[in-house]
């Protein structure tokens, strides 16, 4: 599997990662070699095998519906890059 520079740009966009244009070819090569490694999976026929998402095959535990959290806004917003009037700020979102 070989990725072209346009593929890298598309993936980087989907992942919201800025990649310098000068590095695109390098990423294309690295990612392609990783995909070659990954393609080894196709050596094995796994048809009919149930996928395993959690190693223990366990089931979800449920929490009682109780309010256990208190307001910690000041503490949480102390580490935020841009906060005003209790709101996190980002460049204007246009809908």
């Amino acid at each position, binding site marked *: 599997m070989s*990725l072209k520079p346009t*593929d*890298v740009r598309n*993936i*980087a*966009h*989907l*992942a*919201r*990662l*800025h*990649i310098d244009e000068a590095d695109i070819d390098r*990423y294309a090569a*690295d*990612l392609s*070699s*990783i*995909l*070659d*490694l*990954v*393609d*080894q*999976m*196709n*050596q*094995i026929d*796994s048809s009919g*095998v*149930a*996928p*395993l*998402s*959690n*190693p*223990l095959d*366990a089931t*979800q*535990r449920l*929490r009682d519906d109780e309010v256990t959290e208190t307001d*910690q806004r000041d*503490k*949480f917003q*102390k*580490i*935020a*890059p*841009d906060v005003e009037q209790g709101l*996190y700020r*980002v*460049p*204007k*979102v246009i809908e």
Partner: protein
Amino acid sequence: MAASITEIKRGLNKGEFSSVEITQDYLARIARHNPALNCFISVTDEIALEQARAADAALAKGEVAPLTGVPLAHKDLFCTDGVKTTCASRILDNFIAPYDATVIENFKRDGAVMLGKTNMDEFAMGSSNENSSYGNVANPWNTEHVPGGSSGGSAAAVAAGLAPGATGTDTGGSIRQPAALCGVTGIKPTYGRVSRYGMIAYGSSLDQGGPFARSAEDCALLLQTMSGFDGRDSTSAEQPAPDYSGALGQGIEGLKIGLPKEYFADGLDGRIAGVIETAIDELRKLGAEIVDVSLPNTGLSIPTYYVIAMAECSSNLSRFDGVRFGHRCEHPVDLEDLYKRSRGEGFGAEVKRRIMIGTYALSAGYYDAYYLKAQQLRRMIKQDFQQAFDDVDLILGPTTPETAFKIGAKTDDPVSMYLQDIYTISLNLAGLPGMSLPVGFSDGLPVGMQLIGNYFDEAGLLNAAHSYQQVSDWHLQVPEAFQ
């Protein structure tokens, strides 16, 4: 200085020295040696001394918790309330965690002292600690070599005696591989044994916290504190942890140990194979029965692991977006610019590679070929182990295919780096516990042996390792420069 945690506990309880004294000793060692090793991202002297003073007060009152006054280091991906928690990433360089991970809470509950936060591969992605935005860590046995990764800082700190014990996390070998390369003991418990709450995620279905120490005996103490059910982690196992220390010393007479032939095949450094053979002979002498087993899908574990880990990380790392915490780029012109530059500047090259592969593997049209396929192979790999454990109590092999390589030797070839994990990652896929313990040297660099246990049989692993360590002293070796 090569005090064990067991010895420190004894000394503190007998009043031979105070927690403040021992803590100061370690802080002094860190001050002296860390510049050469770069094990620590943050040294928390003030907190350490404050906790040590509190520990001494408690000891004076006879209030002794399991680790009261014992200084330890924590991998810098456990959130520590009020303390910088970076994951060795620029994107979290300014991140003061506003809460404690469950593991950190447990150590506080049990009276431990925090010396600092250790270096690592960025977001635990790496096998050499070269992917840290705080610089690489040097292997105390030869500072031109890597300590392994991703928990390289913790392993090196314990090896160099900058901490008697440290925490790590293991997603594909990140405790066992650096333990092997640095000549210390480390255990990755069963998935679900140690809470992941507050442990910044890399591959959620693979990540598991565990301790490093010189010996299995010390690891038992630390694992005891780390283990246990946590209601804040849906994947935490509702299984009470047994008394690990109490399970030591049972011997291994009659224990059936399997050697997977795939772990001794091509790719394994012959010198390592020799060292491991010698250790196996020791175990035989201790009464273990050694048999052959097969884990036929071992070769597929690397591609399977990387697909799953990268897919999960591509999603797990989306929250680092420059909005609520962490690095934000200067003067974003719009939202897209904010995201792309904050993340582009904040993440290193390996993290970006993994996010991109994961994004690709999950994207429309590729899901079945990559993610679903990997999940199917994951089950097959787990079934290999389940079959093997029908016949044996433990599985044994090398931890790594080679000893610590030179810094820079593999940085240009991500795939060759990934192959370092060949013997360790299948355990994460299966969720099984495993540990690495030092069993000798090759060209002056430590060799690690891996023991693999059945689900939740950490006690069995620790007991076997302890039995070996009772008749060997590899775990007591300290590099000359740090004695």
